[in-house]
């Protein structure tokens, strides 16, 4: 409810009197404030549902079968139920980052105080574009970041409450809520990462961050090994601090899995990245880690059980994952270490400094005792183990990646390991195969005998895109002469080889797109070498510029990618950010050729990250597993209405041009993904020169990967000037055959003015 009291409260929180920009129409918005934007967006990009389950099991009226036109006992139908489940998933994802942010900010405030300043260096003046845009606040201190998270938490209550009994009842309104909470996910991610950057002095205002070692083979197992797993670096940075203080940094290996690995390499270039989430079970089973420090989010639920199998010990360090363990922060360190070493007990230690000291001391004592437990399975042993297989195919039937495991094991029993290696390269690391096997075939240990043990390279995450970089590339991105910004983000639930992301990154970097990466995708991009032994991080420059390959950082660093889109609108186009969401999202949708790719998205966090990008107008391409998220945002290029407002003439124009064609789409193969990515980088705002470049890539990729000219090419050619020179004759013949006619070219296309909004059309013009 909008009232004067609430307005006063908002003005106080965002310090409305500060005149860095005028306060826009939607400071600290509630769901209804941006509902019309969502409905406009979803008029073109309609929710497409693929129910993962026919039932609703959420209340005691049910279970209710919602198949087809059935309704549940509460009255809900299958479409609304999908919208509801998507909203719940996005709430879970957003809350994970909000929880991360709240924790890290509280931890740093405890260390440095609420007034600790936010300073991201001399190249980043627009420090928090998401917070500026959504709240209307220019955060100056850790205390301000805390306010941003508190606001997001309040919105979470409202959105999550709408899922109770399915009370919302309308699928599009559920989607609006999912979009709202996912927009706030980016606010929370930004708060978390900016707090980390200033609190831990992570790199900022520079592109050439250190190149660090990557891969399980990079870990020196002759030393005591501490493995950090999860997303929150509060504890892992304390481990590094303790090692530095004690002069042990070269004597103890610190390595990580998932985003804590990325965060830790932002803190110390001696830390190593083992790999993505999909290698967690594999690495734990090697026994290489003496001590495992788990924090939060993407950590295996059975970590203590798995660690016990190889004599490793676990320190749980987050209140989100206490794991039923005894909390020992108050007990003497040496006593805790003794029990860990002698009894291999796992503990919960919420005092991070204490946890770090215990981890180091326990690792130093355990390592000499655990040499035998670090022995890897040899091919000979794997061959023997494979003989237990009775060819029942139970393993194959439970494999989420549909791998032909039985055949691979049968071949391994004969000494042929090619199939096993093939499976390992595609394994998502869930371990269901072993659970299903009634004959004890140790798949994950057998993988040790076929895994590559070489060292790859990854560039340490660099945080925000610099304002200076935005000034340089803003014009070519908006005009289309840099053909696009492609963000490879998300988890490692890949459909095929683990290095498919690296292949796609290389393809687009070579074509002079700007490629940015975060999270597990940033890691796997480094897991492929060319004939000269170089990874994409060594081959391509680290700059946010044409042909650059930029590791932005961890999951929470995704906010810097959405932030870069906002900064283009703000720094290049001079549009105010402050509480001006619709104008900026409209600008990004219609003029910034960006596309997200979550090829292995798995988690609820990935759902909210992607949905947050969608509300901002950034399309996302997903891998086949993501069809299980239940929802995509698709258009139908031939049938849908592509009318927008011509901002200069202030009149409606039917552009007949489906750009971008979809907002969220699942594709099955990397070949199709690459073609789709190139297509989704086209924008109505492209100049003829820019469209030529984009079409050149679209046509070239389509010819090479699918075959022939794209059959929908005529939809994307507006005038003859858009046609790439190299394909001109062929394209003209195709257009003639299709009965193509010229389409309008707009220099200021906008949705503003095409739906009910408080934003005047003049607001899009600068």
């Amino acid at each position, binding site marked *: 409810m909008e009232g004067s009291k609430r307005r006063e409260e908002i003005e106080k929180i965002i310090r409305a009197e500060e005149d860095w920009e005028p306060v826009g129409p939607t400071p600290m918005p509630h769901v209804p404030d941006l509902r019309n934007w969502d409905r406009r967006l979803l008029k073109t990009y309609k929710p497409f549902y693929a129910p993962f389950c*026919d*039932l609703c099991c959420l209340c005691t*009226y049910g279970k209710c079968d919602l198949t087809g036109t059935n309704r549940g006992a509460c009255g809900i139908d*299958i*479409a609304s139920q999908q919208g509801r489940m998507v909203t719940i998933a996005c709430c879970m994802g957003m809350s994970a980052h909000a929880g991360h942010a709240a924790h890290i900010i509280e931890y740093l405030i405890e260390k440095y105080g609420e007034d600790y300043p936010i300073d991201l260096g001399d190249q980043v003046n627009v420090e928090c574009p998401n917070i500026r845009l959504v709240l209307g606040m220019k955060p100056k201190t850790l205390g301000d970041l805390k306010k941003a998270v508190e606001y997001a938490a309040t919105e979470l209550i409202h959105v999550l409450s709408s899922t109770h009994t399915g009370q919302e009842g309308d699928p599009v309104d559920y989607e609006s809520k999912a979009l709202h909470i996912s927009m706030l996910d980016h606010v929370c991610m930004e708060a978390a990462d900016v707090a980390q950057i200033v609190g831990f002095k992570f790199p900022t205002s520079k592109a050439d961050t250190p190149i660090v070692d990557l891969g399980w083979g990079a870990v020196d197992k002759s030393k005591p090994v501490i493995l950090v797993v999860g997303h929150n670096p509060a504890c892992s940075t304390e481990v590094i601090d303790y090692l530095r203080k004690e002069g042990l940094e070269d004597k103890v290996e610190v390595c990580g899995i998932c985003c804590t690995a990325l965060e830790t390499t932002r803190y110390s270039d001696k830390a190593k990245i083992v790999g993505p989430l999909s290698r967690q079970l594999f690495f734990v089973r090697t026994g290489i880690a003496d001590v495992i420090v788990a924090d939060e989010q993407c950590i295996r639920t059975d970590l203590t059980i798995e660690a016990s199998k190889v004599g490793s010990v676990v320190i749980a360090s987050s209140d989100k994952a206490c794991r039923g363990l005894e909390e020992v922060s108050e007990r003497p360190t040496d006593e805790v270490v003794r029990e860990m070493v002698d009894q291999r007990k796992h503990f919960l230690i919420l005092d991070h400094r204490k946890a770090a000291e215990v981890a180091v001391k326990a690792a130093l004592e355990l390592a000499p005792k655990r040499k035998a437990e670090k022995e890897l399975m040899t091919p000979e042993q794997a061959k023997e183990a494979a003989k237990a297989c009775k060819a029942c195919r139970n393993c194959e039937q439970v494999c989420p990646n549909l791998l032909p495991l039985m055949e691979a094991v049968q071949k391994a029993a004969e000494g042929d390991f090619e199939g096993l290696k093939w499976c390992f390269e595609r394994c998502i690391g869930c371990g269901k195969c072993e659970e299903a096997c009634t004959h004890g075939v140790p798949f994950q240990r057998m993988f040790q005998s076929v895994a590559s043990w070489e060292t790859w390279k990854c560039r340490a995450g660099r945080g925000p895109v610099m304002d200076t970089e935005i000034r340089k590339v803003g014009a070519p991105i908006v005009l289309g002469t840099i053909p696009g910004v492609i963000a490879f983000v998300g988890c490692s639930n890949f459909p095929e080889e683990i290095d498919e992301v690296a292949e796609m990154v290389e393809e687009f970097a070579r074509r002079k797109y700007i490629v940015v990466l975060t999270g597990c995708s940033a890691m796997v991009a480094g897991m492929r070498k060319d004939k000269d032994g170089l990874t994409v991080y060594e081959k391509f420059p680290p700059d946010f510029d044409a042909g650059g390959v930029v590791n932005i950082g961890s999951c929470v660093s995704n906010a810097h990618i959405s932030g870069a889109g906002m900064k283009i609108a703000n720094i290049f186009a001079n549009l105010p950010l402050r509480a001006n969401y619709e104008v900026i999202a409209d600008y990004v949708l219609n003029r910034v050729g960006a596309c997200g790719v979550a090829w292995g998205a798995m988690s609820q966090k990935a759902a909210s990250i992607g949905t947050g990008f969608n509300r901002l107008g950034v399309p996302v391409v997903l891998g*086949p597993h993501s*069809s299980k998220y239940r929802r995509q945002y*698709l258009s139908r290029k031939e049938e849908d209405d592509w009318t927008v407002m011509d901002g200069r003439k202030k009149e409606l124009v039917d552009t007949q041009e489906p750009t971008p064609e979809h907002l969220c789409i*699942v594709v*099955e193969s990397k070949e199709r993904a690459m073609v789709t990515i190139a297509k989704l980088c086209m924008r109505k705002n492209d100049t003829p020169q820019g469209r030529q470049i984009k079409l050149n890539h679209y046509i070239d990729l389509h010819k090479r990967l699918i075959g022939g000219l794209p059959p929908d090419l005529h939809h994307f050619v507006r005038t003859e000037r858009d046609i790439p020179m190299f394909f001109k004759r062929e394209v003209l013949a195709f257009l003639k055959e299709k009965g193509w006619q010229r389409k309008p070219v707009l220099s200021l296309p906008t949705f503003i003015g095409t739906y009910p909004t408080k934003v005047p059309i003049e607001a899009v013009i600068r």
Partner: protein
Amino acid sequence: MALPYHKVNVLTGFKAAAEMKDPKPLAKVIKKASRPLLVIGPRALTVQIEGKPFIEYLVEIAKAADIPICATAHTKGKVEELEATAESTYDIMEIINHLKDPEWKGLRGQGCHDLVIFGGFRTDIGNQGLSTLKHFAPHLRTMTLCKFYYPNATFSLPNFKKDEEWKALLEGLIQELKEAQ
């Protein structure tokens, strides 16, 4: 699977595909359709049935019954190599999005398809796409020709343990369709 008397206690939904083990009724369903469509996925390129690529069977089926082909992912080149016409405008989710609409004119512009045959998809993405059609496209029927059972289809092959059974069914289906021409 036996169903509990009180339906609030079911484990999953009620509507599941009819299991088709015999080529004759499958051919009958295809022949009866006014505007069938064959949607080919990328696994048809890699899956071999006793040395012959699955996609070759699918193309033979399309030719035998004059069924238009929607070649998704990167399958178009191979379909054309097999001397069939492939429409590749749509990927799997895009074609399903169109099929939901009973007013859509279809690949040949003659009206929405009434039977959609799928082959060559990952079972997970395939089952998700079929779920969309099961719930939101009551105007059409779906059929899968992959080796595994797809519960969300209208008609599905069973889980074949042996490729030779699958091969026999596909060859039988091709024969039935050819004879009907």
